[in-house]
């Protein structure tokens, strides 16, 4: 259906290929008291699709804890805001760009980064860190290599050019992503508490200003596409992918921050998915006002664009503002200096309608409340799948001699090997405040000009979420919390990116509901609220959904950077201790999946009480300068964590385990555990402190030499570990 053949009467097919269900269309007609014209239909389809309206998820998202002592702005604005003392705030959010990245990995990932950056600097914050949570199909799948290289190049291409360090993230490979990769981008910015900008339009008669790049026919229907299930001919959806222009975004960033120093901006909103449509409606709805827009004023890149195209274009690097009329020329000059478009395209009205005109002719008139408050909201049916049951693991089937070969196999595996090949393609040091670089637990970025820093980590275990969505949801939150603790920071809040399959299937909806319940439990218990997020549903190809993937981005605060911890071993003779109890939980572990090729058994459960106690104990030790290095024990278990510390510090260890079931102890994935390195002189202090707090602590061994030695029986050189650990990506994609 094209605009030319449009006959001003609604045809079924047209409604359908706008992704609107028939009852939804009836709702539109009822609300307007008439049938919408094409432009209006396009606007409704963009606003009412899953991506913009959250119609399937809203009800459940409301259950997440979103408040806390340090929370200044929770979900609902462009990004969340937390207090990090001294009048400084951190502003952050994570967002998905999954479908576009599958269709065109470089541009899809690049524009994903551009979009999340705008969400953060729209709030008045200077972005200081980017992270990316990536999920790809099996490494043997024909598409995977191309998608991986394209996505990594695109993320670097955009972030490097605009000059914001990409300091962390996560990558994993699993067949469930063969037809739907996940590209989740997170940005953290820093602002002043009294200089935060919001999107609520105000002041009847105030000018509505368009700034940034010109509007072309880019990504028309992108927002609708982002909520469409794939099928084999989704190749046809290709032309809707837009091209990113990081240089223009850099200019836009500097121009906006420059204008924000003046008292000129009343409201500001970036043009993301559904461009001018969602940004204008967002502003009007938040401000409970109307907007009158003359589309002929919109700077255009292509000839004779229609109202429909102008409203639905997803051209990048654009912003919408309401400014103080007396500051117009000042604002105009700033954007001119930066060679950017600056056009007054309309004004704020009291009609509470969105009115669009072109050459004097009215192209659309929609009451804002119909678009927003009356937007469909569903409580979809859900069924909760049985969680996978415990399997017996027979000790006799294990030969202690295989420990080292198994270890090598695991640290060489795509899901556990070093990600250096990736982060070396990202400028992770620009802005000269990166204190802890990629390759440790959380990345640490200094707040410019101070001695404090923020620690950031993204995590999620989709395998846990698939086989026990509740524990999986709990775990995703806790894993970032642990990473942040391990870097010596106090965890403060998280952002989430909820990637799931088709919510119209009760099983998928059940996964969503359970993940939210698990997340809620962890967030509440750890006083670690969700302050922003994003939902990406319909990640399915030919009816096969991805594993539930609630990617979490956590942020913490280090008040004194001299207390920053990294995972690298520091000195010969230091003592290694394990915090937390090890029962040897091999069910559903990386060991089983990598070595035994089994994805079976029960998911390890997290005891939040112990989790919190252990974490706080580690932080106390760090506070007292009692630790030399810290690493949380995550996927792959104790021995993987131990080798990562050896490799990062290029130092060996001798550890004494003397356990009957060595494999279970070394590769089990019991939760709530950390490895700490302490000097001999601090060892007693640490032990007493542990006793006083009834913390389970075990002495594991000593730092020293060039080998990893277990019970003097099993030995491997750190050099060999390093070699094997860094092999995969170079060979696969390098």
């Amino acid at each position, binding site marked *: 259906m094209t605009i030319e053949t449009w006959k001003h009467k609604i045809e079924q097919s047209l409604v359908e290929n706008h992704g609107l269900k028939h009852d939804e269309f009836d709702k539109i007609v009822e609300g307007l008291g008439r049938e919408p014209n094409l432009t209006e239909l396009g606007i409704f389809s963009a606003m009412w699709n899953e991506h913009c309206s959250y119609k399937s998820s809203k009800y459940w998202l409301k259950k997440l804890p979103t408040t806390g002592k340090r929370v200044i702005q929770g979900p609902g604005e462009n990004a969340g805001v937390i207090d990090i003392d001294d009048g400084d705030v951190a502003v952050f959010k994570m967002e998905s760009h999954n479908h576009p990245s599958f269709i065109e990995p470089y541009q899809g990932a690049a524009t994903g980064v551009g979009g999340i950056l705008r969400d953060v600097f729209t709030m008045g914050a200077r972005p200081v860190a980017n992270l990316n949570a990536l999920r790809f199909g099996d490494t043997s799948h024909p598409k995977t290599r191309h998608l991986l290289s394209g996505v990594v*190049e695109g993320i*670097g*291409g955009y972030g*490097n*050019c*605009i*000059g914001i360090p990409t300091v962390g993230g996560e990558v994993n490979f699993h067949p469930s992503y063969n037809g739907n990769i996940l590209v989740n981008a997170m940005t953290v910015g820093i602002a002043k508490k009294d200089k935060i900008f919001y999107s609520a339009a105000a002041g009847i008669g105030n000018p509505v200003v368009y700034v940034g790049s010109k509007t072309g026919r880019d990504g028309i229907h992108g927002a609708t596409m982002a909520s469409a299930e794939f099928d084999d001919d989704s190749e046809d959806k290709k032309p809707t992918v837009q091209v990113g*222009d*990081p*240089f*223009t975004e*850099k*200019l836009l960033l500097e121009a906006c921050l420059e204008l924000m120093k003046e008292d000129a901006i009343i409201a500001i909103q970036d043009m993301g998915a559904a461009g001018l449509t969602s940004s204008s409606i967002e502003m009007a709805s938040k401000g409970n006002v109307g907007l009158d827009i003359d589309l002929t004023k919109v700077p255009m890149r292509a000839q004779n664009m229609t109202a429909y195209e102008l409203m639905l274009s997803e051209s990048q690097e654009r912003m919408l503002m309401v400014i103080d009329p007396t500051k117009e020329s000042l604002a105009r000059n700033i954007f001119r200096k*930066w*060679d950017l478009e600056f056009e007054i395209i309309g004004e704020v009205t009291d009609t509470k309608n969105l009115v669009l005109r072109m050459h004097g002719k009215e192209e659309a008139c929609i009451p804002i409340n119909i678009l927003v408050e009356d937007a469909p909201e569903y409580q979809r049916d859900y069924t909760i799948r049985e969680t996978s049951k415990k399997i017996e693991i027979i000790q006799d089937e294990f030969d202690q001699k295989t420990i080292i070969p198994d270890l090598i196999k695991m640290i060489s595996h795509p899901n556990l090997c070093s990600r250096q090949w990736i*982060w*070396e*393609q*990202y*400028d*992770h*040091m*620009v*802005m*000269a405040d*990166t*204190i802890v*670089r990629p390759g440790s637990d959380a990345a640490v970025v*200094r707040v410019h000009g101070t001695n404090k820093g923020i620690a950031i980590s993204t995590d999620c275990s989709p395998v846990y979420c698939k086989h026990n969505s509740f524990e999986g949801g709990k775990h995703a939150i806790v894993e970032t919390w642990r990473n942040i603790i391990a870097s010596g920071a106090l965890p403060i809040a998280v952002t989430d990116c909820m990637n799931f399959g088709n919510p119209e299937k009760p099983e998928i909806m059940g996964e969503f509901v359970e993940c939210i319940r698990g997340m809620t439990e962890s967030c509440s218990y750890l006083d670690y609220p969700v302050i922003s997020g994003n939902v990406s549903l319909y990640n399915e190809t030919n009816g096969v959904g991805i594993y539930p993937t609630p990617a979490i981005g956590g942020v913490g605060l280090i008040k004194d*950077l001299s207390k920053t911890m990294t995972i690298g071993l520091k000195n010969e003779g230091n003592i290694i201790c394990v915090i937390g109890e090890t029962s040897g939980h091999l069910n559903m572990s990386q060991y089983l999946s990598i070595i035994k090729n089994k994805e079976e058994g029960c998911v390890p459960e997290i005891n939040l009480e112990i989790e919190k106690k252990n974490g706080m104990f580690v932080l106390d030790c760090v506070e007292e300068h009692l630790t030399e290095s810290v690493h949380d024990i995550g996927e792959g278990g104790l021995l993987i964590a131990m080798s990562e510390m050896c490799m990062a510090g290029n130092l060996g260890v001798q550890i004494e385990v003397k356990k009957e079931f060595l494999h279970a102890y070394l590769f089990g994935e019991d939760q709530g555990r950390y490895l700490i390195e302490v000097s001999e002189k601090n060892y007693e202090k640490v032990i007493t402190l542990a006793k006083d707090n009834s913390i389970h602590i075990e002495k594991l061994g000593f730092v020293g030499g060039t080998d990893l030695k277990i019970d003097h029986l099993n030995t491997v050189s750190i050099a060999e570990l390093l070699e094997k650990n860094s092999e995969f990506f170079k060979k696969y994609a*390098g």
Partner: protein
Amino acid sequence: MKSKVIVFPGSNCDRDVAVAIKNLSGVEPQMVWHKETTLDGADLIVVPGGFSYGDYLRCGAIASTSPIINEVIKKANEGVPVIGICNGFQILIETSLLDGALIRNSSLSFICKDVYIKSENQSSIFTKKTKIAKMPIAHNEGNYFASAETLKKIIDNDQIAFKYCNDQGEVNSVSNPNGSINNIAGILNDKKNVLGLMPHPERAAEKALGCDDGKHIFESVLSI
């Protein structure tokens, strides 16, 4: 000593180098917008890293046509010290203040990591305090190229400032991160008052960032 840092659209290491110089010398450098036309009173001119004009067309090409560049060339010819870092190096090459060319890394990908460099010319105002130094690189087009005769000229005239090496100071192919001819990481003009280098000394100018080898380059040229 008054330093001036030139800012182009797309520069993104301008603040980093200004902060480094401020911390080392105690004197706040002056930021100069590329549309300005004078650099009077500058004791050091810095052309910072970044992606001027998005690195579109050719890295540094468009910036090298900015109004301020004529003034940079004038001051350079008067003998004022000029340092171009990363994109700044690319810009100085495009202005022909420095010889050769910087082409795509042999790996064809952006590389951000610590490297070691050693000073080849131990007498220049920039290099005299540096022997072997560790500092980060972060670039796509740092692969130094020069024609046979140009190469001969800069060697004979002692214009090679730095070469990539390993932590032992050995210059070999393994320690060459981007395919640069003769492992060249930085070069001087024939009067030795203009330096261009790909590594980022400003990102290695304080211990908190992991290493402060980079400070010697600023200290020697600012005679701190």
